[in-house]
């Protein structure tokens, strides 16, 4: 099984530590992958789908067609990319007229999408394809951390199309976190959105910040050491918009990297706004 | 000699009531044969009672054990094997003694002794109660031939009873035959009901009387005497073939009431085609012959010679065993209201049904009555006259569903038509109703949760109004071609009339009242009379059919034998003492007291339910209960008081108060052992005298425990009783005893805590 990796925009261009951590984790787990060459923005669902659905569909279809040419499943590391590509893939498969329209446009650049790509997220690949034994097998250091897991919005929802189980009290990420030896703690507003999505971070940053603040208060109250999320955009929002004494934010790949004993320098912690040192100290 | 049987009930009673002591004390009386047993209700225990009666020649029995509501029937049957089944009394020393006085065995024992002594004194005055056997007729009267009445007639006919089905209008089928398609299946009304119409018209056990009304009902349950008047049709039903030539030729045209004026009929007519019976009728007020003496065109053209201008009304007398009332509903009259129903383009739900009906006056086309054109927009307005404190407070139940049904039928036929629906809520309380609503909702009809204040006449005979949309907080303006009002349903004229003729209880809105809305929904207070369908409350067709089935079952039970056997636990009136004031006749809810041919008031045992109201209100003491007479109750009270003067007598009605007291016992709630309960059938039984009597015998207080105010099981017995109690309190104040020593409590039969609370409350003010 080989994957074509879709890195997105925020991780490679703003928090590249997430990209390198992921590469190290996949290597440690002996996963075969390649970069999806020539990929563009997914395109960002909240932003581009708000402006023009047909554009969103065509740009997404191009990315899906690239993976189709590779003959691989497309793996993302980001809720936003996952949500965007999964939903556009779903639309195109459900509505043949839309697929036809989109292919007319793709034809202009000599491409065609046949609807056969499967869109995956790193977290559910770890959970479903790898499984506990394989991942635990690579853990070199049990992390004694209290982790506040933030699922984000587009990983599991809308549950009707995702098929990853229910979103009210999910356990996928909590389980993965516990495979590293860390403790996933319960906290109020665990299901709350980070506030960045839907184009809100760009257009109404105060609103996004207000929602981040709510999460910040809840995780502080619960006594967490860090926030862990499978989405670089939530990651960015929490790292940038929490108050100074906010919790350090880790992408799931960074947490796994720490457990696997990967090279910390490759994880890019120095470039987080909120200092990650307390976490690193605690797990020594 | 009286046998007194004391039950240990295992340890249930004997832990707190010293049975040995009771036996010792009671055995001092040579007139008593006292026995104790561990479980009297067991086979052995019952055997003990029966053997004792036979061996010792006992003529009366007292059983001191649990509540009569628990094992009363066991002991009644047991005693009934060796004595008259009413020559015994039960003293409740478990639920109402041992279980509520667990903290003081001495007091519990003292109280148990008093209760047993009370029972002994009472049973001394018991008379053997006989039985009344009355013949019953197997004929059944069904009033109203709508879907409920027709179905009832079919059910009874199929069960082998002879049914007389009486219908006011010229045809059978009621309101249902005016409908187009019915929810939630959207099959057409006529298709569903036609087979039933034909079945009932040809059923060997059913006789149908159309154009007929019930004028008078007398007699008694099981043998009602019914007088019916059959209005003249002026057409011989035997000869008329329904060919319709007469109507073709008749020169007089009138708006057809059946089609709400959307079509015309002649002076000789059938309300609509395909109806049963297919016989023509002459409307006397329209007919030229009757108005001027001239014109006989119909006679000249009738090949069958069926016209009969001299036809007279017929009077028919029937004897029936039971009566079923199925007289149905009408639409509420919204004339002179803000709904502007006088405007030609404002119509009611039924009127729209006539339009949509493909065999109706417009052949299924929706038209604006003002000009016959197709409306470009149609607006439904719900709850017109319902859920309205100014008019009808209740919800008419079927309107949400039939409006949705009509709206989606219209939308399918006229996809271009703009359809609005203004509502407060959409109610879908039935099987498959919500799914029907969900399918309807995707059709894109403008659903507006907001009601108009008034419907104004606009230009070109349109209508316009503003409505406030709740979710957007916007005021919307609606301009529409046709308004359909979901008009409130009210009891029909026939329903109101039958309520009077039969002395049926009805609610404030005029709908007929069953004995109990939940547990006894088709019986009425009049034995042998049953109510079904929309005469009782608005309901969909399937519920009318269920009602009819339920009532048919009840009637079949009532008339299953050729006779009715009843225990005579009823009232009797002494004609020597009766002063003919008529209070009892007025007061009896069951029409059980009648004046006979000799001008004497007598109780119809077959209708009497033994509530005791008449006995309590009779000013001359002429009315007496055969079982539980004033004398019996008085000696019971004095028996208790002479054993233990530190007593509050608690008259508790068998339906609620007594039951609540039992439940207090089951929950082991504590209250003062001063409170000793005397069972009465209804608080109506407790007369003014009975309320004050215990004080004469030294009681510390009196409490009366009855049903909740609007839930008296004998309709309104507790109301009168409470009034008497209030008066009695004033007397007690005047004579210096203190009105606070007499208290009236209303409680639900399931409210054990309320009984205990009440008992504690009064014990506190009666030191």
């Amino acid at each position, binding site marked *: 099984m080989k994957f074509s990796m879709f890195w997105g*925009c925020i991780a490679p261009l703003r928090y590249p530590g997430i990209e390198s951590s992921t590469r190290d984790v996949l290597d440690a787990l002996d996963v075969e992958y390649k970069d999806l060459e020539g990929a563009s923005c997914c395109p960002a669902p909240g932003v581009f789908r708000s402006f023009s659905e047909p554009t969103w569909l065509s740009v997404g279809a191009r990315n899906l067609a690239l993976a189709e040419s590779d003959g691989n499943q497309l793996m993302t590391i980001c809720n936003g990319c996952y949500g965007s590509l999964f939903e556009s893939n779903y639309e195109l498969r459900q509505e043949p007229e839309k697929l036809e329209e989109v292919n007319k446009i793709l034809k202009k650049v000599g491409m065609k999408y046949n609807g056969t790509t499967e869109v995956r997220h790193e977290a559910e690949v770890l959970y479903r394809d790898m499984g506990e034994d394989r991942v635990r097998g690579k853990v070199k250091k049990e992390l004694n951390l209290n982790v506040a897991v933030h699922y984000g919005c587009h990983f599991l929802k809308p549950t009707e199309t995702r098929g990853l189980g229910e979103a009210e009290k999910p356990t996928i990420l909590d389980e993965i976190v516990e495979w590293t030896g860390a403790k996933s703690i319960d906290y109020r507003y665990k299901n709350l959105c980070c506030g960045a999505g839907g184009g809100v971070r760009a257009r109404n940053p105060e609103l996004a910040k207000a929602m981040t603040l709510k999460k910040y208060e809840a995780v502080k109250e619960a006594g967490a050491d860090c926030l862990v999320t499978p989405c670089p955009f939530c990651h960015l929002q929490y790292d940038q918009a929490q108050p100074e004494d906010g919790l350090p934010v880790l992408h799931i790949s960074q947490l796994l990297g720490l457990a696997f004993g990967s090279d910390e320098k490759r994880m890019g912690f120095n470039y987080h706004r909120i200092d990650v040192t307390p976490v690193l100290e605690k797990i020594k | 000699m009286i046998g007194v049987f004391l039950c240990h009930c295992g340890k249930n009673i004997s832990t707190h009531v010293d049975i040995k002591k009771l036996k010792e004390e009671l055995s001092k009386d040579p007139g008593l044969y006292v026995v104790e047993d561990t479980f009297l209700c067991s086979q052995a225990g019952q055997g003990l009672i029966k053997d004792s009666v036979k061996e010792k020649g006992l003529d009366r029995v007292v059983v001191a054990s649990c509540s009569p509501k628990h094992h009363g029937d066991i002991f009644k049957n047991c005693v009934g094997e060796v004595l008259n089944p009413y020559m015994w009394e039960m003293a409740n020393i478990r639920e109402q003694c041992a279980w509520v006085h667990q903290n003081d065995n001495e007091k519990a024992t003292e109280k148990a002794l008093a209760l047993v002594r009370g029972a002994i004194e009472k049973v001394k005055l018991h008379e053997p109660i006989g039985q009344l056997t009355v013949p019953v007729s197997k004929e059944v009267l069904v009033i109203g031939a709508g879907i409920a009445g027709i179905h009832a007639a079919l059910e009874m006919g199929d069960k082998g009873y002879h049914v007389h089905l009486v219908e006011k209008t010229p045809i059978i089928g009621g309101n249902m035959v005016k409908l187009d398609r019915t929810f939630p299946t959207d099959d057409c009304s006529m298709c569903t009901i036609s087979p039933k119409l034909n079945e009932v018209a040809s059923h060997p056990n059913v006789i149908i009387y159309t154009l007929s009304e019930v004028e008078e009902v007398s007699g008694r349950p099981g043998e009602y005497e019914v007088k019916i008047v059959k209005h003249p049709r002026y057409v011989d039903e035997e000869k008329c073939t329904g060919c319709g030539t007469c109507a073709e030729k008749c020169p007089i045209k009138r708006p057809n009431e059946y089609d709400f004026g959307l079509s015309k009929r002649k002076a000789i007519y059938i309300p609509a085609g395909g109806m049963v019976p297919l016989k023509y009728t002459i409307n006397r007020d329209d007919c030229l012959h009757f108005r001027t003496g001239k014109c006989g065109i119909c006679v000249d053209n009738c090949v069958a010679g069926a016209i009969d201008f001299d036809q007279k009304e017929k009077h028919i007398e029937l004897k029936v065993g039971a009566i079923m009332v199925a007289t149905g509903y009408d639409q509420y009259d919204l004339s002179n209201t803000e709904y502007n129903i006088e405007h030609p383009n404002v119509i009611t739900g039924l009127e729209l049904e006539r339009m949509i009906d493909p065999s109706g006056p417009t052949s299924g086309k929706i038209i604006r009555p003002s000009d016959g054109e197709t409306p470009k927009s149609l607006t439904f307005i719900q709850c017109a006259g319902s859920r309205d404190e100014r008019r009808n407070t209740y919800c008419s139940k079927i309107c949400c569903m039939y409006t949705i049904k009509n709206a989606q039928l219209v939308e399918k036929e006229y996809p271009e038509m703009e359809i609005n629906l203004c509502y407060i809520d959409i109610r879908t309380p039935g099987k498959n109703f919500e799914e029907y609503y969900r399918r309807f909702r995707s059709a894109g009809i403008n659903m507006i949760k907001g009601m108009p204040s008034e419907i104004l006449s606009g230009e070109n005979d349109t209508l316009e109004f503003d409505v406030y949309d709740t979710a957007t907080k916007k005021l919307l303006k609606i301009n529409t071609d046709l308004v359909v009002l979901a008009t409130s349903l009210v009891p029909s004229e026939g329903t109101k009339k039958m309520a009077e003729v039969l002395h049926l209880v009805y609610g404030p809105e005029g709908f007929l009242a069953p004995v109990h809305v939940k547990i006894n929904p088709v019986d009425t207070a009049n034995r042998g009379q049953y109510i079904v369908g929309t005469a009782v409350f608005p309901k969909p067709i399937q519920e009318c059919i269920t009602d009819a089935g339920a009532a048919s079952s009840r009637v079949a039970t009532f008339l299953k034998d050729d006779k009715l056997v009843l225990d005579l636990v009823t009232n009797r009136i002494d004609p020597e003492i009766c002063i003919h004031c008529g209070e009892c006749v007025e007061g009896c809810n069951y029409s059980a007291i009648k004046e006979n041919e000799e001008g004497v008031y007598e109780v119809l045992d077959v209708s009497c339910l033994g509530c005791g109201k008449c006995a309590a209100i009779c000013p001359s003491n002429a009315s007496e209960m055969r079982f539980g007479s004033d004398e019996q109750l008085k000696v019971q009270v004095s028996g208790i008081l002479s054993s233990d003067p530190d007593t509050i007598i608690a008259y508790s009605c068998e339906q609620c108060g007594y039951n609540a007291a039992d439940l207090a016992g089951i929950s082991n709630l504590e209250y003062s052992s001063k409170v000793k309960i005397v069972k009465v059938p209804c608080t109506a039984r407790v007369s003014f005298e009975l309320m004050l009597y215990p004080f004469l015998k030294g009681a510390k207080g009196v409490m009366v425990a009855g049903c909740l105010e609007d839930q008296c099981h004998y309709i309104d017995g507790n109301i009168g009783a409470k009034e008497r109690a209030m008066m009695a309190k004033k007397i007690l104040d005047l004579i210096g005893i203190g009105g606070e020593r007499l208290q009236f409590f209303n409680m639900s039969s399931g409210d054990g805590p309320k009984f205990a609370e009440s008992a504690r409350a009064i014990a506190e003010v009666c030191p």
Partner: protein
Amino acid sequence: MAKMIDPEFAEKVAKEGDKSLFLCYQCGTCTASCPSSEITSFKTRKMIRFAQLGLKDDILPNDDLWDCTTCYTCQERCPRGVKIPKIILYLRNLAAQAGYMADAHKGTAKNLFIFGHAVSFKDKHEKLRKSLGLDGVPHTTLGSKKALEDLKTIMKANGFDSLIGYKEEK
């Protein structure tokens, strides 16, 4: 002033947005579950109701329309299965076409033409990548002129450039 219902606009939203629009019976569960509704004047139920009634003028210029983060909580909880975020996204499309697009958003959209990504790519970003042992330039449209041109062709074929007011500098 009282408003007239516009059934044509409502039909358009139902047809091109999502047909579940008319299933909404205004129970308000969506608003109760919405984190934005709690903080701002945006109320989910109201927006869907505007669409049902075709009240275009209350939708297109409305800033509230853009306060939804598409968190999907409303859709998860809706008892009628209304595809609320899809409808809101469609209404935003109409608003954008009518000229109601925020400048910040136009900026993000323009990035797609310049970089093929939603955010910019500058030297400092390249340096950061290298310091972590990654290739300085990702193998996306940033690393392939053809890929970027293909992307631009596709976007122009959708009229996206004129929508956001992007004119290519020659």
